[in-house]
C-alpha cells in the first residue's frame, strides 16, 4: 500500500497526493460512521411494470415514504428486459453506489445459470430477502380434480399430455413443473407466457389444464370461481385471514405435502441487492431500513393483499440461504440440460 502512495506522489504531484491521502485516510472513518443516502434513490425492478416485482418495489417505496424512513425521494423504475437481466447489468455497472437497489426474486442467482449474461450473483451485495411468494397448483373451476393426487393421476392417465401454462421459460414455474413431473411420473407440456396473468387467463378460458401461479396472480379468477386452488407448495398452510371466495380463505388451501406430494416446499424469495463494492455500512443501513419496513402497517397490508409469507433475512442468514437455494436449483437445471454457465 505505502509504495503505491509514494509512486502516486511522484507521478501526480503534491496536490493530488494530498487529496488521495485525504481520501485514503478518511474513507474508513466514513465507513464506520452512519451512512445515509445523499441523493435520490432508485429502486430498479427486475421485471415489467405491473408485475409482482414491480408491486414489491412499490410496496417498499410506499412504506418508506409514508413513514419517512429516509430523507431522500425514491424513484421506482422497471428494467425487465432479458427476463430481468437488464436490471442486474444496470445495477452492477453502478459499482459502489448505495443509491441504486436491484429488486428481484431468485432470478438474482438463477438467471446467470440459464442465460449468457455478464453478471454472477456473487457480484452483488445482497441486502435482504423480505418475503416469500407461494406457489399454488391451480386448475379450472369446474375441473373434476380435488387434490394433488387425483390431478397428477389424471395427467398420467390422459391420452394427450396435459398442458401446464406458466410465466417465462426456465424460470420458477417451469422448474416447479419439472419437480412435479419427477415426483409423480406425470408428463406435462409446459407452455411459457410473458406473465402469470396471461397464464391465468389461458387456464380460465380452458385452453390449458393447470398452472402454478403465485396467489396474487390468480386471486381475481379464484374469487369468481373460475379457478380452483388444489394445494400450496409450502411446509405450512398460508396465514389465516378472512374468506377470499365464498367458502375458502387462503388458509383453507391444503399444502401439497398434506396431500402426499413428495415436494417438501417450493417458494420464491423476493430479494433486494446493492451494486458490487458497496461498503458494508451502506448494506447495513439498507438492511436496517428494510427491516423497519417489515414492521409498518403498509407492509402488513401488502402481505395480506398478495397472500405472501413474510420472512425477513439479511446478513449471514441470507447468504447461507442463497448458497443453498442456488445449489438446489443448479441441480435441477443440470438434469434438464438448461445450464449455460
Amino acid at each position, binding site marked *: 500500500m505505502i509504495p503505491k502512495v509514494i509512486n502516486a506522489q511522484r507521478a501526480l504531484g503534491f496536490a493530488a497526493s494530498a487529496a488521495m491521502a485525504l481520501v485514503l485516510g478518511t474513507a474508513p472513518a466514513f465507513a464506520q460512521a452512519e451512512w445515509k443516502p445523499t441523493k435520490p434513490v432508485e429502486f430498479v425492478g427486475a421485471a*415489467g*411494470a*405491473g*408485475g409482482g416485482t*414491480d*408491486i414489491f418495489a*412499490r*410496496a417498499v417505496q*410506499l412504506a418508506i*415514504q*409514508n413513514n419517512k424512513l429516509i430523507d431522500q425521494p425514491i424513484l*421506482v*423504475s*422497471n*428494467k*425487465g*428486459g*432479458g*427476463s430481468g*437481466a*437488464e436490471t442486474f*447489468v444496470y445495477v452492477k455497472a453502478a459499482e459502489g453506489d448505495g443509491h441504486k437497489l436491484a429488486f428481484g426474486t431468485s432470478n438474482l442467482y438463477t438467471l446467470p445459470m*440459464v*442465460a*449468457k*449474461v*455478464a453478471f454472477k450473483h456473487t457480484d452483488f451485495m445482497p441486502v435482504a430477502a423480505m418475503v416469500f411468494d407461494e406457489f399454488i397448483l391451480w386448475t379450472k373451476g369446474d375441473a373434476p380434480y380435488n387434490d394433488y393426487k387425483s390431478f397428477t393421476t389424471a395427467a398420467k392417465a390422459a391420452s394427450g399430455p396435459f*398442458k401446464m401454462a406458466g410465466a*417465462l*421459460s*426456465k*424460470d420458477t414455474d*417451469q422448474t416447479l413443473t419439472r419437480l412435479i413431473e419427477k415426483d409423480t411420473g406425470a408428463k406435462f*407440456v*409446459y*407452455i*411459457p*407466457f*410473458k406473465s402469470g*396473468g*396471461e397464464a*391465468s*387467463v*389461458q387456464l*380460465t*378460458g380452458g*385452453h*390449458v389444464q393447470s398452472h402454478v401461479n403465485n396467489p*396474487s396472480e390468480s*386471486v*381475481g*379468477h379464484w*374469487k*369468481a370461481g*373460475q379457478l380452483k386452488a388444489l394445494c400450496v407448495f409450502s411446509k405450512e398452510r398460508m396465514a389465516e385471514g378472512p374468506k377470499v371466495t365464498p367458502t375458502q380463505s387462503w388458509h383453507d388451501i391444503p399444502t401439497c405435502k398434506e396431500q402426499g406430494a413428495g415436494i417438501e416446499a417450493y417458494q420464491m424469495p423476493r430479494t433486494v441487492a446493492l451494486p458490487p463494492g458497496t461498503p458494508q455500512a451502506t448494506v447495513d443501513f439498507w438492511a436496517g431500513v428494510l427491516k423497519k419496513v417489515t414492521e409498518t402497517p403498509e407492509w402488513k*397490508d401488502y402481505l395480506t*393483499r*398478495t397472500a405472501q409469507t413474510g420472512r425477513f433475512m439479511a446478513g449471514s442468514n441470507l447468504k447461507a440461504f442463497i448458497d443453498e437455494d442456488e445449489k438446489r436449483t443448479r441441480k435441477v437445471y443440470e438434469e434438464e440440460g*438448461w445450464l*449455460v454457465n
Partner: protein
Amino acid sequence: MANLDSLFHGFVVALTMQHVMLMMVGVLLGILVGVLPGLGAPNGVTLLLPLTYTMDPVGAIILLTSMYWGALFGGSTTSILFNIPGEPSSVATTFDGHPMAKQGRAIQALSFAFLSAGFGAMVGVIVTTLLSGWVTSFALQFSSPEFFAVYFLAFASFVGLSAAQPSKTIVSILLGFAFATVGMDTISGSLRLTFGFDELLRGISFLIVVIGLFGIGELLLTMEEGLKFEGVRAKVSLAGVLETLVRMPRYWVALIRGSLIGVWMGITPGGPTAASFMSYGLAKRFSRRREHFGTGEPEGIIAPEAADHGAGTAAMLPMLALGIPGSATAAVMMGGLMIWGLNPGPMLFIERPDFVWGLIASMYIGNVVAVILVLATVPLFASILRIPFAIIGPLIVVVCFIGAWTVGASKPDLWLALIFGIVGYVFKKLDYPIAPLVLALVLGDKAEDAFRQSMLMSQGSLNIFFSNPLVGTITTLAIILVTWPFWAGLMRRVHLLRIRQPKVIE
C-alpha cells in the same frame, strides 16, 4: 338495462368537482408527454403512479386514464407534424398525416386525426358499456392460435399494399422480424442476436427505431431537399378546424370501419397497434381513392386514428375484467390497481361497481374533454410548422435524442437511434418501404410467441389454426387477404372472358 343504471350511477361518481379537475389535469399532462416523442404514455403514467398511492382509487384511475387519452392524442400530433410517432399505434397516422401537413394542411390533418380519434374512442366506450358481460366471455375464447391468427390477419391486411416492389417489401419485413428477435426469447428463455452486448438484452426498442427511421431519417431528407418545411405556407386559423368538422361525415365508411376494427382488436385483445395498421390497410384496399393514399388522403388519417383509439378504450375492459393488459400503459395501470388494493378480475365489477362504472363514465367525459382541449390547441401546434427550418430542425434533433434517452437512459440507444436514422434515409433514397419493417418489429415477437405456443399445444400440427370456428374463420380471412391480388386478377379475367365470349360467337 342494468348496465345503463350502473352507468348513471358511475356519472354521479365521476362528475364531482375533484374528479373533473383531475380529468383536466390528466389530459393536459397527457398531451404534454404525448407530444414529446419517447416520453409517451407508459412513461408518463409510470412517473405519475407514486402520486396516486394516497388518493382514492376512483380519483387515481381517472387521473391515470385521462393522462392516457391525452397522450394518445399528443402522440398523433408529432406523427403528423414531424413524422415521429410517439406510440407504436400512431405509426400508421404518419403515412398520410405527415404528407398532408407538409402540403400546408396541418390544421386539417390534425383536426381529422383528433375528430376521428374521439369518434373511435366513443364507439369503444359505448361498446364497453353495453356489452361488458358478453365481451369478457368472448375474450376468454382467445388462446395462442387465435392470437396468431389475429396477428396474421393484421399482416395480411397490410402487406402487398405498398407501391414499392414486392421484393423490397419482403426485405423490409424480414429485417423487421430480425430486429424483433433480438433479446430474451420467451419460449426458450435464451438470449438471441445480442452478440454479447449487454445493451441488447432488452431487445431493440420500438421507440428508438421509429425515432431514427422516421424522425432523423426524415430530417436528413429535408436537409437534402433544401432546408425547409413546405408547411411554412400553412394558413393557421380556428376556422380550418370547423371546416374539417363539416367535411367529416363524408368519410363515414372509413370512420365506422376503423372504429369497429379498433373495438374488436381492443377486446380480443390484439392491441391498438395491430388495429391501426389493419384499419389503414383495409381502408386503402377498399377505397375508391386508393391511389391517393400516402400523399395526404383524409381517409388515410381517419382510418388508423379511429381504430387506434377505439382499441385503446375498448382494451380497458379486458384489463378490468380479466387482468390482461392490452398495452404497455394498461400494464402500468394494472400495477396501480394492485397497489390501491383492487384485484382486476370478474369480481371487480361486483365488489367495486363504483370504481368500475366511475371509470367507464369518466371515459365518456374524459374523451370529450380531451377532444375539446386538443382541438383548441390545433392552431398552436400547426403554427410550429411556420417556424423556419433552421430553428425547428435542430430542435427536433434535440427532442429526438431526448426521446431516445428516456427509453432506457442508456448511451448506446443514442447511437442506435442515429444508425436507424441513416438506415431510414438510405431506405427512402433506394425506395424501400419503412412501414413493413415497423409492423414486423412491433408485432413480430408477439406473433412468434403465439405461433410457437400454438405449436407446443398442438405438438407441431398446423391443424390447430383450423381447430375451432373462431380461429378457422380468422385464419381463412387472413389467407384470402394475403392472396387477394391473385383473386382480384382471377375475377378480372373471368369478367373479361364474359365480355369477350359474345364476340367470339359473333
